[in-house]
Each structure stands twice: as structure tokens, then as C-alpha cells.
């Protein structure tokens, strides 16, 4: 680990109105169109914009990957070994942003999480851990079975039948996870359609926008709860 002020000094590399090298007007592009020099990241730019994409949630994986490779060729620090310290810093910033962006956008779930995070509707690493109301009863039963299994294991009791009922519960929740994924896909499609309308110069429907984002957030929370449940049952079954 190394710390030097110059290495990732964001104050000095913050994007300005003009190209740092030739003073041509800044466009927000990776390279200055006039002199070809690598440019600082504009403040507040999101991962979608980095790839030149709108904030839509349907992204073709193949196209994204080939774009990722194209940008890697241009931005990777390998290209800047003999450049100035300043340009090396910019390359480090831009190429790390490229990799961070690709990591978030290539996965459909991470993509939604990122969008909500970027719009300030979700905090990183925090998911509500209350069970969704409609699942309360099933979750309660499942937790009981889990406790019984742990006890039976500790006492050396018969675990076979408990295993069977837990496996059934796990399959049930796995099914629910798939339902949630389908639900999320639907909201995402609605979001994309709303964005398309906006692109056709229709006025932005702020109310609809808010509703859709809130739904995404709710579905994501439910999804993360069920997923953790499935994972913990799987690990208990593996140990038993």
C-alpha cells in the first residue's frame, strides 16, 4: 500500500471547462477531440454515461463487453507508461472507472442497485433485514425448522426428516426468488419505456419516475432478503 499526494490527487485532476493540454473546450469525452490527450473525469458522471449509454436497464451483454474491450485498449495504464505523471494519474482514474462501471453494468441486478445508488435512493451495503409482510408466516416456519435442525444435530438426533422439510422450504424460496427476479425485470422494462418516451421529447413524468424507482428499491430489498435466506438454508444443509 502506498500513499502519495500526487498519485490520485483529485483536486488537480478535476474536470474543467477546457482541455488541460490545448485549452480547447471540454466535451466530457475520454480524450480531447482537438489534441487527443486523455481528460479528467467530469464531476458527477455516471457509469452509463462513461459507456456513452442512456440510463436504461436493458443492456446487451455482447455490445457492452466489446465496448469494454475497446475502451480498455485506449485507457489502460499500459498506454501511459511513458506519459507524464499527470496523464498517468488520469489513466489510472479513467481505467479504474471503466472497470468499476463494467463490473456494475454487466450484471442486471448490480446495474439496478447502481442506478438507485447513483440517484441517492439506496445506500451501499444497507439492505432492510425485516421479512416482507407476505412472507412472514413462511419465514417464521423456516426459522423454526432451522432451529430444530441445529438442535437435532447437537443432540445427535434424527436429522433426515428435518433435512427433507428444509430442502422443500429451500425449493419454495428458490421459486420465490425467481418470481422476484421476474418482477424486477418487469419494473426495469417499464423504466426503459418511460425513458424512451422522454427521448421522444415527451415531458418527463417525475411522478411516474419516482414510483418506478421506489418499486425497484422495494423489489431489491425483498430479493436480497430471500436470497440471504436461501443461502443460509443451503449452508445449514451442507453442514448437517
Amino acid at each position, binding site marked *: *500500500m*502506498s*500513499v*502519495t*499526494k500526487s*498519485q*490520485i*490527487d*483529485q*483536486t488537480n485532476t478535476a474536470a474543467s471547462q477546457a482541455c488541460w493540454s490545448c485549452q480547447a473546450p471540454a466535451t466530457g469525452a475520454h480524450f480531447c477531440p482537438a489534441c487527443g490527450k486523455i481528460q479528467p473525469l467530469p464531476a458527477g458522471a455516471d457509469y452509463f454515461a462513461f459507456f456513452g449509454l442512456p440510463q436504461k436497464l436493458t443492456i446487451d451483454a455482447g455490445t457492452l463487453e*466489446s465496448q469494454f*474491450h*475497446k475502451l*480498455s*485498449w485506449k485507457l*489502460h*495504464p*499500459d*498506454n501511459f*507508461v*511513458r506519459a507524464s505523471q499527470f496523464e498517468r494519474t488520469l489513466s*489510472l*482514474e479513467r*481505467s*479504474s*472507472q471503466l*472497470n*468499476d462501471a*463494467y*463490473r456494475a453494468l454487466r450484471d442486471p441486478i448490480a446495474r439496478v442497485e447502481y442506478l438507485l445508488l447513483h440517484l441517492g435512493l439506496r445506500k451501499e*451495503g444497507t439492505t432492510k433485514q425485516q421479512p416482507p409482510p407476505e412472507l412472514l408466516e413462511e419465514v417464521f416456519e423456516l426459522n423454526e425448522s432451522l432451529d430444530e435442525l441445529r438442535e437435532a444435530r447437537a443432540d445427535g438426533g434424527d436429522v433426515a426428516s428435518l433435512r427433507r422439510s428444509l430442502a422443500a422450504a429451500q425449493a419454495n424460496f428458490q421459486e420465490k426468488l425467481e418470481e422476484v427476479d421476474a418482477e424486477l425485470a418487469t419494473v426495469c422494462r417499464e423504466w426503459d419505456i418511460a425513458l424512451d418516451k422522454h427521448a421522444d421529447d415527451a415531458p418527463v413524468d417525475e411522478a411516474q419516475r419516482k414510483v418506478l424507482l421506489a418499486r425497484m428499491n422495494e423489489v431489491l430489498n425483498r430479493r436480497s432478503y430471500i436470497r440471504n435466506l436461501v443461502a443460509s438454508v443451503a449452508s445449514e444443509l451442507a453442514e448437517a
Partner: protein
Amino acid sequence: MGRTVGIDLGTTFSLIAYMDPATNSPKCIPGPHGSALCPSVVSVDEDGKVIIGEPARQRLLTQADRTIYSVKRLMGRGVSDVQDELRLFPFHIDADSRNVIRVRLGDKLFTAPEISAFILRELKSWAEDYFKEPVDRAVITVPAYFNDAQRQATKDAGRIAGLEVLRLVNEPTAAALAYGLHKQKRGRVAVYDFGGGTFDISILKLISTDEGEIYQVLATNGDTHLGGDDIDNDLQRRMREKITELFHIDLSKQPEAVQRLRKALIAAKHELSPNDSTTLRFELPGGRLFDETISREVFNRWIEPIVARTMGPVKQALSDAKLAPTDMDEVVLVGGSTRIPLVRETVGEYFGRAPHSELNPDEVVALGAAVQADILESGVKTMLLLDVTPLSLGIETMGGVVAKIIPRNSTIPASAQELFTTGVENQTGIDVHVLQGERELAKDCRSLARFQLKVPPGPAGLARIEVKFLIDANGILQVAARDLRANEQRTIEVQPSYGLSETEVERMLEESIEFAEQDFSERQVIESRPEADTILHATEKTLRDPRSNELSADERRSIDESVAALRAAVATTDYKLIRRRIDELNQATMHLAEILMNSALQTAVQGKRLEDI
């Protein structure tokens, strides 16, 4: 500016390679003993002189307590990390070492990066002798599963050796680069790298794009404390138990005998790769002979648990890459331990295909490093490596829980921003603890560093400090902090948990120059003088030959002048001047050389130098 090379700084052997422009392929550079393998062994003699490589390895048998091997296992580690194996090593570790291990060799203490720097300097001198040019920049390889501290220690070693480290490249990735270049392969490749001290598995995708070939690492895993050394240590334990049982001899107070035993059992291990059985012969202190026949079957049973330990990381890497064993288009074996038949069988069976090992498993990593060095140096890019960070990066939160901010197998460079604020009124500092690892709790992860963000006193939650964590293309973490309210950059004083400070590295660099036997120019002067003597002598001799009267007066005067100039140059310590005068004299005597040849042969030897005739 000097040459750029690729270096494999290995546990058992180290190698140096370069890209040969004539063949456009990488080549290893041999040392003075004719082999390209430099034993990673360093010894300090009674006068304090440092001995490196093969001669140091010889001293393991006579001066075991002044000689260190497998120093790579100590890189970036603290004393508590290596307690178990230190019992098997004859080195003396300084008791005050704590988070930087210091080894006593003779009457001086050395850190692991300093000892590695001796090996790097030795390899550097091999290359300088080979090129007759200084070498000052290098790509150095590291195990893919090396953590931040181990990587930083390797980079420090490079600096102490007087090398600018252009890049640290992961060993399996370097091997894939050498293989890809060799075979022009596409598709998914698993690289199984089982070396002397470390084990790595990397899953790569080789992609052709309009711009060139991309080597994208999808996932990597490994164990930085698993290698042929563990097999040797296990054999040693078994044989020592047997010796104690049969002869009531305890070798623990006899380091030279332990080293002789180690040498004998390593030879036995090597024998068991091509043969079904071997006999280990070892003369005990006191003269009696310990004779033990080992069959491959028994050997396999002994080492099976060690080989099995490699499969956990293999499965994890595949699962992280979301691939099945049969999805691989190629499986490549790297590292000396993959010569063991049980290793080849285990890997072949798991992937359901015969693994490749066409390239020399000892050399392939250094060759790949040379390819990457050339990519960085030449600026001509037809290949691009996209590697990953092997371990998740996290910060400690409430209750000692780790919040992961950059997941393992993220393509590097990678970054994450975290916002920190105060929890109580008038708090003036926020403590940040950075860790690497996959476990939930901070105490189970590797501590990288701690630092404190200074904030002006104020109400709780008012301060807003954004910290940017960035893993660079070497896999090394950089940290920067920014006060969002004041909109200014903040300096952070980081105390690395393991490793050397900047000032320590600087001091070691200065010291190592004193230690270095001779620097490049000194060696060049020493080598160029006998060459000058040879040509001066040859010239004088031929000028006495009657046939030399065929020379014109001008030619003779030119030779006389060149001879005088070379004599004057030899008196100086300027090796470049000596070489230039040698060339000039060769030039001046060209016609003389031709005259001396039989006229029938004359055309055949045109352009030859006098001393060659």
C-alpha cells in the same frame, strides 16, 4: 536509459529474460554458470561479503546459518505468520522483528526485500554482462494470490536493487502470455501454477479484437504458502522421525546435516518423477548410513494431502468465473512442482483433458514477464493484459465486521469511494482500518493499514471526508482522502501493518549500493581490458610479419595511432572509451588482416577482425 527486462523472482529459482528483437520471441539470459536458473539463495561470508545464487547454494551445506533460501515465503509477512515453518528453516530470525521479519546472516540483519534485492541485483548483472549495457527497468512477476503487503515488498525489493519496477505481473498471467504468443491460442485457459513456495490458479479468456489480443483474467485463487517446499518439509519431517527412531540422532542442532538431508530428499523427489522408486542415501553425523527406498506409490500417498490442497482454490476460481471444469479449452501447467506425476494426473482428471506443458515450466513465467516488459517499453501494443485483484478489499465497521468495498476478481485498476463522518460531537479524528480477505470479521482478514482522518471539531455527522481506495495495475492499494466540506485534498499518514516505510526503502537502496560487488561500469572496465590486451598483442605480432610491408604508409600510421589511442584508453576507467578504441583499432587493421590471408580465402573473410584470424 538502459534496457528493460522481465524477471521471475521465484521461491527456489529466479530468472531474467528479454525480448529478442531478431526472433521477436522472449529469451532467458544465462548466468556465469551457464544456467538461466539462479538459485534464490543468499549467503554472507565471514568478511561480510554477500554471495548470491549457485555459490550461495553450495554454502547451504557448509554455512547453513549464514545462508538463506526460500526468502519469498517471508515477503510482506510478520513473524507470527511464519512461526510453523521457521522451525524447519535454519535461519535466525531477530526477536524484535514483529511486523517486518529480519533475518540474521552473520552479524548483520536483513529484511526479506533486502535479501530479494540481492537476487535481483545478481540477475541484473547477468543481463548487463549479456547486453554490455546497463539494465535499469524491469517487469517482475508475483504469485497471483499475493496480497498488498507481499506485492509492496516485491516492489521495494526492485527499488533496493536499483530497478524501476514498471509493473508487477501475476505469474500465471505471465505464463499465459508466453503460451498465447507461442501457440496463438484463443478461448478459455486455466493456468495451474504450482511452484516452490506458492500455488496459483488463474482462469483466463483469450479474445481477438480489432486492436489485438486481450488476455482477460476472469478469476484467480491460490495459496501463497503452498508449494514444493511443503513437500520437502513433509519428507524432511518423516525422515527425521525415522532417523531419530532408528539411530537416536536428533538433527535439530546440526543445521548443515539438515541441509544435506534436505538436498538428498529433494534429489529423491526429483528421481520419483521419471522413476517408480528411488533410494535416499544420507550419511549421518558420525558416519553411519541412512538408506531408505521410497516407491512412487508411497510418495504419492504422502504428498496426496498437499496436492489435494490445491484443488480447493481451483474449484473456487472456476465457481467465481461461473464456469465448469469442462468449459476450459486449454489447461496449462507452470512451476517445477507440476513435474510430479500425481499433480499432472490430479489436474488432468479434474479438467477432463490432458494438461499442456510444452514450454519449460521453469522458464515460462520469466518469458511472459519479458513479453510484458516489451509491451510496456516499445509502445507497440498488440496484446493487452486485464488482470484482477485476488482478494476482496474491505474496511472495518462497527463490531469488527468488514464491509467489502472492492470484491475479489475485480479487473484492475479498480476503485471505491467511501464517505466518512464523525459519530460524536467535537471528534477530531476518524479511524480507518483497511483489510484484505474474504472473511466476515476483521480479525480473520489480513490487516493492510490503519490511518486516521483528521477533522475540525464540530457537531456529530457534520464532517464529510471522502476516501478513495484505488488498486492500481500492480494490485497495490493507493489511498487518497478529500474533505468535501472544505473541498480540499487531505494528506493521510498511513501506517502499513506489514512492510517497510518509504524512508527505510531509501536507506536500504543506499546500503545495497555499498554491498553490490561491483557496479556495471566497473565490471565492464575489468572485462574490456583483457580484450584490449588481446588485440594489442595480435596487432604487434602481425606488424612484425614481412607481409605487413604491403600496407601503405597511411594505413600503417593509422594503425600506430589507433594502437597508441587504445593504450591510453586502457589506462583510464572509461569502459565506453576502451570499447570505442578497440573498435577503431579493429577498423584500422582490417586491410592488414585481409593481406595476411591467403588470396584464395580473401573474399571469404572480408570484414573479419584481426583477432578472429
